[in-house]
């Protein structure tokens, strides 16, 4: 037991020092995406300016969701700022779990936030989270491979165009696959992608009476098209590829096309990270001739949970991190292509930024997204790649797992849709919708 005493003593000591150091320190939960990690690096400047220390809890997206959701529902109060998205913000705001952001200063210019982002992060007209970056989705393609195949990508392609291009560029013998798309289970991963694809095929999650619609022909058509496209021209093992996996594949030059978040554009055109930086073209997300494009709308935003003791300091940090000045600072240090995109109107009025090849296409994609009318027929919900009801995360995670099992060849399209239909209706019944 020689070990014992010093350990006990040091435990006590450490506990005392820990509680003394909490005076003015913000604890921020965030996702381990490139832009956030960059912000983490710059946060020492915030500390210098204000004297407020910042503690980071950087987690992978799934773990982050789990942690912050448990914390907010149990009123844990472990975080002073949480990084959440367009799905969580209005729901949590409505429950009174977030501090309304109505104390933002005039210099911050809240009206400069892109209207699409501001609407998505508000409930009843009150802003509950400030967007750090915003995104839609678009087609990124290899201009060199396209011209080698004698094809030209239209500015606004259809799914048929995508299929033809994938077929022409597909060259598995040389490790080049026609198209890389998300198949990874999880509502924010493959679930989001198949939902927007289904939207463009006229499918929807629910009818106006909250009945699941997976038994409708539109879903079967959309899912079958996706599975066939990916089985024919996708990379092997696409059932486990999400955003990061596809990004890595595209950067290594393994994909002819990649349809994904607009923020990816800055990573695939960065010569330091991407071997194909010089030959990437951009186009709007495809449609299927029904007047709905398959692009989503999302923002990673900073919000203040109602349980915090340091709401003022937290607001100060949010103002700093989502300000025009922050964007200018990143631009000065790392170039305009690397600033957090999609959050502010003024960014898209900056001439230097408009020279960045993907700037206009990003803005057009964001403007083309309509969360209140995501698909052809009317729906009772808001949200494009998600349904803004609390039950959605749970349901869609399971539904996307059923779909991913199709991608992995473990079940048929029809089986997956039947399972999805049953489990969705079951969960909606449990939640009292039906």
């Amino acid at each position, binding site marked *: 037991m020689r070990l014992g005493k010093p350990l006990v003593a040091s435990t006590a000591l450490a506990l005392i020092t820990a509680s003394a150091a909490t005076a003015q320190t913000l604890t921020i939960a965030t996702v381990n995406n490139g832009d956030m990690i960059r912000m983490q690096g710059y946060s020492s400047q915030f500390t210098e300016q204000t004297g407020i220390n910042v503690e980071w809890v950087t987690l992978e997206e*799934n773990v982050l969701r789990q942690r912050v959701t448990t914390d907010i*529902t149990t009123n844990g109060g472990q975080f002073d700022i949480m990084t959440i998205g367009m799905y969580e913000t209005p729901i949590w705001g409505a429950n009174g779990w977030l501090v309304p952001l109505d104390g933002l200063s005039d210099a911050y210019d809240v009206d400069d936030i892109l209207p699409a982002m501001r609407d998505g992060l508000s409930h009843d007209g009150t802003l509950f989270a400030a967007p750090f970056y915003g995104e839609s989705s678009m087609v990124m393609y290899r201009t060199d491979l396209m011209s080698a195949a004698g094809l030209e990508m239209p500015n606004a392609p259809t799914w048929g165009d995508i299929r033809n291009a994938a077929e022409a560029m597909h060259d598995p013998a040389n490790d080049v696959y026609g198209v890389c798309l998300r198949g990874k*289970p999880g509502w924010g991963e493959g679930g989001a992608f198949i939902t927007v694809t289904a939207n463009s095929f006229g499918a929807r999650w629910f009818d106006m009476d909250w009945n699941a619609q997976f038994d409708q022909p539109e879903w079967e058509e959309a899912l079958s098209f996706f599975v066939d496209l990916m089985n024919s021209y996708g990379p092997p093992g696409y059932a*486990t590829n999400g955003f990061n996996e596809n990004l890595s594949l595209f950067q290594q030059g393994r994909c002819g096309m990649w349809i994904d978040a607009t923020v990816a554009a800055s990573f695939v055109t960065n010569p330091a990270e991407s071997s194909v930086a010089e030959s990437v073209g951009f186009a709007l997300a495809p449609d299927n001739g029904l007047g709905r494009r398959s692009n989503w709308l999302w923002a990673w935003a900073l919000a203040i949970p109602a349980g915090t003791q340091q709401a003022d300091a937290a607001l100060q940090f949010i103002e700093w991190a989502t300000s025009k000045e922050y964007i200018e600072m990143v631009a000065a240090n790392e170039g305009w292509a690397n600033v957090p995109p999609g959050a502010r109107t003024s960014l898209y009025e900056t001439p230097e930024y408009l020279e960045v090849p993907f700037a206009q296409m990003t803005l057009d994609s964001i403007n083309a997204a309509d969360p209140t009318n995501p698909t052809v027929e009317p729906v009772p919900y808001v949200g494009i790649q998600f349904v803004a009801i609390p039950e959605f995360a*749970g*349901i869609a995670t399971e539904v996307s797992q059923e779909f991913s099992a199709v991608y992995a060849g473990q079940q048929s399209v029809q089986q997956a849709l039947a399972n999805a239909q049953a489990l969705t209706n079951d969960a909606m019944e449990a939640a009292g919708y039906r």
Partner: protein
Amino acid sequence: MATQASRSAARLMMAPAVILLLGWMLVPLTMTLWFSFTRYLPMRGDSIERGLQWVGFENYVRFINSSSFWPSVQATLMIVGGVLVITVILGVLLAILLDQPIWGQGVVRILVIAPFFVMPTVSALVWKNMMMDPVNGMFAHLWRAFGATPVSWLSDASVPSIILIVSWQWLPFATLILLTAIQSLDRDQLEAAEMDGAPVLSRFFHIVLPHLGRAITIVILIQTIFLLSIFAEIFVTTGGAFGTRTLTYLIFQRVVDSQNIGLGSAGGVYAIILANIVAIFLMRIVGKNLDR
């Protein structure tokens, strides 16, 4: 003979452990039981302060009628069973091998024991990315070297992959216990059998294996306790997709993803019942073995 005084002293000494564990078990269990009979959807504003609505056995019925329930029980049994079979069989063989005179036994033992010290999150990440990744993983390199198409392990062979990862973590434990047991084997008896010309297999089945019976039981008991609740390995690798959603994981999804605490708690009660069935079953065997 223990005196009355030492008996009451003994009771006093046992008290802290018993009271602590009783509290650890009863308090959350009572809360789980209570929640399982209520409608508890925090996202819809339900909370203890506002009072939870009593719904009787609704959650229990819903949980067991869900299409995911039986597959999850099946996945649980498959993974636990698979890992047990692999670790026990390989553990016995490895223990026999390490018991032989070899050069550098100490180092080999260190190599074999190492996975036991690796935290589950890390071992899942390492296997997922460094070994099983269909593009950059070691297996993919190996497959390509032999001209085969790399396998997407975690989607195409998900359950075996999970079993492999977990077995890798637990094989050291099984090997160590079995090795210690083998080392206590009566050498003379074994040599006498060898002299009598008994073949290797018969020596193994008639002398070695019976001697190991007790150690094998311990391995199975301890491992089952830990395996029934494996979580990190699945969370990191497949997230419960591709048929790897165990009962533990299903409950996690109900509680954390769906934020349906009542339903998840009902699932928790089922899991406790399942664990206790397994426990009673195991305890019977081990209990007998504990009497010496």
